[in-house]
């Protein structure tokens, strides 16, 4: 990347560093500041960023599963329309007892992100009373976006897979190898038609 003018980013970074001494602040590139915080400091940091540093747009709220360290990384991506800078506020929480506090009081739409992360990662956001079914319906078992959930195994276990897809390398060859077992006579029409 070319060297760019990053004065405003330096200003913001210093300000954050001065307020939150334990924060690990670094400037990734122009308009991107990364802030790593202890997880109990996230709510004060976000409300400080929103109210004093004009970061009033919650652009994104994401979660990354670091299964090797047994941790979830929560990433709040906030944007200031005035300064034109994005701050990625990161924190890590325990993966086994995944719990965090809601930020719904700061940004109304955080509720939606929290509902999704609750459903997909099983993180419980305290204070959000709307963590009901969002995308999935009647889901049992571990939340699907956790890395230890095997989607291929789930798909092959639960859904009928039409023969010919076992090896995706040469589909044309495999389509002709039709598996004739367990298909009743009337349902054969489409399994057999591809042969013709």
């Amino acid at each position: 990347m070319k060297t760019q003018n990053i004065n405003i980013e330096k200003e913001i970074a210093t300000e954050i560093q001065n307020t939150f001494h334990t924060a690990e602040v670094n400037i990734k590139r122009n308009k991107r500041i990364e802030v790593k915080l202890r997880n109990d400091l996230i709510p004060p940091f976000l409300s400080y960023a929103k109210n004093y540093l004009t970061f009033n747009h919650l652009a994104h709220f994401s979660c990354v599963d670091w299964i090797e360290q047994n941790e979830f990384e929560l990433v709040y991506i906030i944007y200031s329309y005035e300064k034109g800078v994005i701050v990625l506020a990161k924190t890590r929480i325990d993966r086994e007892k995944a719990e965090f506090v809601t930020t719904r009081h700061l940004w109304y739409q955080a509720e939606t992100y929290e509902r999704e992360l609750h459903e997909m990662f099983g993180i419980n956001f305290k204070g959000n009373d709307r963590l009901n079914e969002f995308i999935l319906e009647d889901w049992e078992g571990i939340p699907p976006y956790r890395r230890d959930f095997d989607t291929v195994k789930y798909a092959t276990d639960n859904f009928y897979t039409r023969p010919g897809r076992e090896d995706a390398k040469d589909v044309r060859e495999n389509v002709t190898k039709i598996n004739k077992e367990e298909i009743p006579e009337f349902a054969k029409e489409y399994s057999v038609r591809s042969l013709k």
Partner: protein
Amino acid sequence: MIYDKSSGKIVDIIKNYARKHSLWIVAYGTGCGAIELPPTMTSRYDAERFGIRGSATPRQADVLLITGYLAVKTLKRVIRTYEQMQDPKYVIGFGSCTINGGMYWDSYNTVKALDRYLPVDVYINGCMPRPEAVISGFIELQKLIEAGKANGAKKYKENLDWYRENQRKVIKNWKMPDYNW
């Protein structure tokens, strides 16, 4: 019946002719294939030439167009929609993902073979199928109707147990009214 055999046949011919030339699609864009329906229905490809038009509710419709992958949550609604439709009714599977899962073959939330859950009359392959392919699929269906071979609904009724078993395997919480017509 007051018809004798030959007049019954004429009535059948008229019926099949009318059915063939008047296919109403239930307005349910179940997947991303719904994006190719506006071009199909509007001025460039104009499917209304063949008597194909949309209808707002399943009660009035003849054709259920499954436009792409079916998420498990949608499958339940689709089955309900299908069962609300009146005989004779047809199902068209639209796109590769209804045939064998397509590019979602390893997704935990989409069903891979539509004809295990609903009786499909015609499949249109492609991702996504072009409007020409959609129209050609409909013409294929018209041919089947004219020949009296588009009997998916009959198949569904006769083998309801097998279909129900497959459906229940996927849909965990089965709270649906019986299908008894």
